């Protein structure tokens, strides 16, 4: 038996939920199972929310079924962070880059990881999604493995500045 003093106390917390996605998120998840990225357009100001959700958080109006918008799997990094501290449950090798991606045509950002150089990641960098093999697709955003840089000029700051 160890003679060292006990200096740290580990307290595991575990909560088990049955998560029900609801109509709108279910539609989003069924679409991503087919490799499609669905957003929804607000009927008041036309902004496109991604992932799709049931109502507009700003105007408190329901999104109509015909407001669904299919988005491309490419976009612009509006901001990013280089992660050097490990987290339980995140198996990525350190350091890695988390990015906020504004998909083309969307008005909200998606948080994901970037497979790219620490030296070259920057705001405005154009990126595209890298998907799992099609036969592994499920009703999960994890169908996208990560984003990678596109060989394109950077996006103009004005095109994404309100989404930072």
């Amino acid at each position, binding site marked *: 038996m160890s003679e060292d003093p*006990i200096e740290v*106390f580990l307290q595991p917390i*575990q*909560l*088990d939920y049955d998560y029900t996605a609801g109509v709108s998120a279910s539609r989003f998840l069924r679409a991503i199972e087919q490799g499609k990225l669905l957003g929804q357009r607000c009927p008041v100001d036309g902004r496109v929310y991604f992932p799709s959700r049931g109502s507009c958080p700003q105007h408190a109006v329901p999104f109509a079924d015909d407001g669904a918008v299919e988005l491309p799997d490419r976009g612009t990094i509006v901001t990013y962070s280089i992660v050097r501290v490990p987290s339980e449950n995140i198996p990525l090798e350190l350091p890695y880059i988390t990015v906020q991606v504004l998909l083309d045509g969307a008005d909200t950002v998606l948080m994901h990881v970037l497979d790219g150089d620490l030296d070259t990641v920057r705001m405005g960098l154009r990126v595209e999604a890298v998907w799992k093999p099609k036969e592994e697709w499920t009703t999960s955003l994890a169908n996208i493995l990560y984003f990678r840089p596109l060989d394109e000029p950077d996006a103009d700051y004005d095109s994404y500045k309100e989404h930072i």
Partner: protein
Amino acid sequence: MSEPSLTAPHQLAYTYKRSLGPVLSRFFTALRDRKILGVKRKDGTVLVPAREYDPDTAESLDELVEVQDTGVVRSWSWVPKPRAQQPLDHPFAYALVQLDGADTTMLHVVDAGSEAQMATGMRVKARWAKETSGAITDFVFVPGE
């Protein structure tokens, strides 16, 4: 009409890692040796479990004293259907136990077998794990002496 909603199990799990500090470190280290420590206040009363500060005066406390691993149930509540994360997988009581030598009660488990065995004022004693690790789960209380 839309398709039915998707559902999926979702487990939220994370582990807190708490530094114990000098006083609680001694309390937990003593549990590994099957001893329960309290802390003595200026007026001579003993708080169990040990803590670093007097809850009334906020004075620092560091005079640790061993108390008995026997005591009296001051209050209790029966748990007929324990949940997965609870300390025992069969019905038990949560109880406030005042250990012999202590002036306060501590919340712990009484493995009493049935609710009929529980009573306020009953005597309990610690049943220690075969292998202790320096955790509050190194023991549970059982009825009698």
